């Protein structure tokens, strides 16, 4: 995060979804497969990894960053605070789609290309 957000290291650290091994099995995905995460509010392609701070079946985790912010609930319910946590999502395998870097992801989303 402090090493430069345009760098690969940031994508590797935050362009991921941490999933429980049992959920990965259900999905039929290997560790390290790219997956598409879809919520009511948007979608994003990230890399599925096994939860390091698990287990937590049924619960997936995308670290704070533009990838998570592509799918979270932006509604603040008059508190000023978007609802960053507890967004219901669907995960599907998207093996051939790339995980975009933070800058590309945000630029593409802003231009309406992704």
């Amino acid at each position, binding site marked *: 995060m*402090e090493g430069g957000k*345009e760098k690969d290291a940031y994508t590797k650290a935050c362009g991921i979804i941490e999933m429980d091994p049992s959920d990965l099995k259900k999905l039929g995905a290997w560790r390290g497969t790219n997956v598409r995460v879809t919520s009511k509010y948007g979608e994003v392609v990230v890399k599925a990894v096994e939860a390091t*701070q698990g287990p937590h079946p049924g*619960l997936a985790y995308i670290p*704070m*960053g533009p990838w998570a912010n592509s799918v979270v609930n932006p509604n603040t319910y*008059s508190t000023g*605070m978007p609802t960053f946590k507890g967004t219901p999502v669907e995960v599907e395998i998207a093996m051939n789609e790339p995980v975009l870097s*933070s800058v590309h992801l945000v630029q593409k989303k802003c231009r309406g290309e992704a």
Partner: protein
Amino acid sequence: MSKSVTDVICPFCGTLCDDLEVIVSDDGKKIEDIYNACAIGAEKFMHAQAADRVKKPRMQQPDGTYKEVSYDEAVDYTAKMFHKARKPLMYGWSSTSCEAQSIGHEIAEKAGAIVDNTATVCHGTTLIAVQDVGIPSCTLGEIKNRADRIIFWGCNPCHAHPRHQSRYSIFPRGYFTNKGHKNRKMIVVDPRDSDTAKMADYHFKLEQGRDYELLSALRVALRNEPLPETVAGIPREKIIEVAEVLKSGRFGIIFFGMGVTQTLSKNHNIDNAIMLTKDLNEFTKFSIMAMRGHYNVTGSGQVLGWQFGFPYAVDLSRGFARYNPGETTSNDLLRRDEVDAIFVLGSDPGAHFPISSVRKIAKLPSVCVDPHITPTSEISKLHVPVAFVGVEVGGNCYRMDNVPIEARKVVDPPEGMLTDVEFLDRVNKRLDQLMGGKK
């Protein structure tokens, strides 16, 4: 020969460590090594040295690429943007010094802007709760010397505040806690087996979003009233056991983080946590503290507080200070298209706001003042690189417990680079010229 600079302040997180040692080359230009810092803090110092650092302001061209411009042009563009805008948003302020914040607020008053800091997506709900029910708090020094019951609720300091536990909360030997962590009971509430949770004496692995229920259950347990068999997935016996542990302590502290402020119920989670603290004070001494993220987000709240009376989301567009979270907060303003220009300093909404808000930023006239390249800088019309506060320029900062600490300068900034204060000062003066002395 290199020289060593001691007692350096780390400008990363709200723990604001003040014991870093930085080895600097003889000419005072290059950082060679850093001692005592956590991995993230060290990375920040080293990144200031990166060869690919942006050194000149950059203006976005119609095709989306960036062209270097001079600081004079950047100052002019920024001042004109403020002059023209009817309701600009000035967001960020958490990764800069209090001095810079103060000049920013002067500009905001002239331009009729809304000043909002990163608390809006962080501890904003905490501030709402504090206004509702007050807060019994203390300093980190008191925790180090006295606290023997430590609760981490919805936070993961192992990763976010890496030296918090070793400097203040768990491991240090204090005056009344001379056995270090052996004196302390650590309770972690987190739906995940976070690395902090793995260290805990008690880990409440609650169901996601059930913080309010669990806080209420602890309050019920303190009163010896009946509880259902499980609350938020935690068995009744465990809740009662932990309530007894909390009561039996001599001094306790609740640290809480984004796990409660961003989860549904938001400010109500916090006000319940504060009320739990109040209840615990019937039995022993208890305090509560927000785990503030940026190194000077607390300072932004302080400066806004003493200048305008409100800690964030301050609307100056009507000529006097208004504050109404849900209306004058950044994400609400952006979602409702209520602002016509955006100025970002010391934060990265491009990465940290929901994408629907980011899209709005990309469409507006926008200036991003940031030493780094970030998603925000890459969608803004103008990116102005500045010197790193705490590395290349000093300034006042507030620790998470509201203790002000003066950050130190370690090395010179790259030649010709302005600091936040210098840049804002020039924008302020240019804005004066444009307005011709009229307010």
